[in-house]
């Protein structure tokens, strides 16, 4: 028990490291402008105000950026889960030659960073006539999430015994119903993990949004906020308010589904 104090010192250090910068962002966002530049700085705002948030929502395009980010991220999650679930099902339930080679090659594509193909990617998207559209973003994000999600779901599908599916088929369900009512519910933790990964990638991406999108009406949050940051003299209170507003959904989404992730593991009928 002599190690306890050391543990707590370490714990507090880690807590400060992980959470303090974010706390400082929130605190700044809630301060009046005179307090933001006060010396010495106050940890907690003396006169908390939502003024910065109000200015952000009424005087800038923030709401438009936010809506675009929500649309693009949601569409990406839906498309990625559909495409990768179909693919992973094929990789685990159907036998055909070259199957494992294909799976290996898919993983290999994960090794390529977007920056290494962004130029041909841009030219291709332009040729397809979808440059400066949300569709271009959704397709890019889906493609870059696919290798990881396919492999993740493949390992989940593999752990679901074929007998469960066969039992459903014997009971008169067709294949589609068997998948929908037996396989997918059992693979739920995997689907949730894939959804978290995909959502965060789409919500946070900067490079594709920077290169593929030019008009303000379809810009997503990261590029939109960077524009605000570069626009004039930095309005720190408003920028920190924007930071809070972008961070909150990603963190909330994670916290909300993480619990299911853990429950899913515990409640899953099959141990893999």
């Amino acid at each position, binding site marked *: 028990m002599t*190690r306890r104090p050391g543990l707590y010192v370490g*714990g507090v250090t880690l807590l400060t490291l992980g959470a303090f910068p974010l706390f400082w962002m929130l605190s700044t966002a809630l301060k009046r402008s005179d307090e933001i530049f006060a010396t010495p*700085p106050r940890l907690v705002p003396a006169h908390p105000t939502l003024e910065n948030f109000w200015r952000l929502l009424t005087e800038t395009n923030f709401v438009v950026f936010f809506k675009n980010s929500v649309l693009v991220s949601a569409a990406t999650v839906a498309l990625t889960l559909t495409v990768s679930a179909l693919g992973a099902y094929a990789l685990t339930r159907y036998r055909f030659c070259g199957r494992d080679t294909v799976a290996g090659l898919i993983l290999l*594509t994960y090794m390529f960073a977007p*920056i*290494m*193909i962004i130029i041909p990617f841009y030219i*291709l998207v332009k040729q397809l006539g979808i440059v400066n559209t949300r569709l271009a973003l959704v397709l890019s994000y889906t493609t870059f999430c696919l290798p990881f999600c396919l492999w993740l779901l493949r390992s989940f599908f593999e752990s679901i015994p074929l007998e469960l599916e066969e039992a459903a088929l014997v009971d008169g369900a067709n294949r589609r119903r068997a998948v929908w009512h037996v396989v997918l519910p059992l693979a739920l933790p995997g689907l949730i993990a894939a959804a978290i990964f995909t959502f965060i990638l789409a919500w946070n991406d900067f490079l594709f949004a920077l290169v593929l999108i030019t008009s303000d009406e379809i810009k997503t949050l990261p590029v939109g906020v960077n524009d605000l940051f570069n626009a004039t003299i930095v309005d720190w209170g408003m920028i*920190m308010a924007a930071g809070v507003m*972008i961070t909150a959904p990603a963190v909330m989404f994670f916290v909300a589904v993480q619990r299911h992730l853990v429950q899913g593991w515990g409640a899953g009928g099959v141990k893999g």
Partner: protein
Amino acid sequence: MRKQALTGWLLLAPSLLLLGGLVVFPILYNAWLSLFDKHSFLPAQAFVGLKNYRYFAGDEEFWNSVYYGTVYSGATIVLQLAVGVPAALLLNEMFRGRDFLRGVVLFPYLIPTIVAVILWKWLLNDSYGLVNHLLLAAGVVSAPVAWLGKDFIMWSLIVTSVWQFFPFVVVTYLARLQTIPPELYEAARVDGAGAWRRFVHVTLPQTRSVLFVIVLLRSIWMFTKFDTVWLMAGEGGVSRYIRTLPVYAYARSFTYLQAGMGAALAVIMFVMLIVATAAYFRVFRREEALS
């Protein structure tokens, strides 16, 4: 049997179409493009063979970007391990509030890069930043330091990146720590091994392979990191002092509009990664053979 194969391929088709069209094809097209003198937005192009590559061999900016990229990835990987591994060891112990802390530690990794960067630019702001205020108050410095000026911008970038990415090390290392059989520790304890010796003789050997993977992945990701570096640099003159290879490649393609040059840099980046990865695997395997 025939039908089974057909259905299998059919279900895989959307994945293969996307990956083939939007990853594999661009990779090949990129290699092809690097042999041309091409404007990024206009269709005009002229075949120039290896001229783009020859140009970079004598390009000071290119060698600077290799240097900055190496410093940046080297320093951030060492520091991510230095912060992440002890943090994982800590979170593997039992104490009240541990699960909460495990969640909180993930936050820097979950937030968008743009947020991490503006947040650290605010903390490191020369006139109103908290860091300068605390250093002044503690008497460490006598005048505010220009953390975002040319002398310290690389350090600021490294700090921001380590903060943003160390949670990956924590999560990955912690996952492996949890699978170490407790009997190993009990046996070491019976033999009278203290905490440090248990770490060296049980934990380290058990986690060697995960450390191998962490260093490999993080190296690849830090070496090809674009957004954190580009955002940290901003539009100003200090960007020269942290212009790593990915940022330089981007600048060639989208600032100078020389798509062929940018493509050549991407190929060079890829070759460097392949060579470094091969060397890394070789060295590691030799070490394995020795031990």
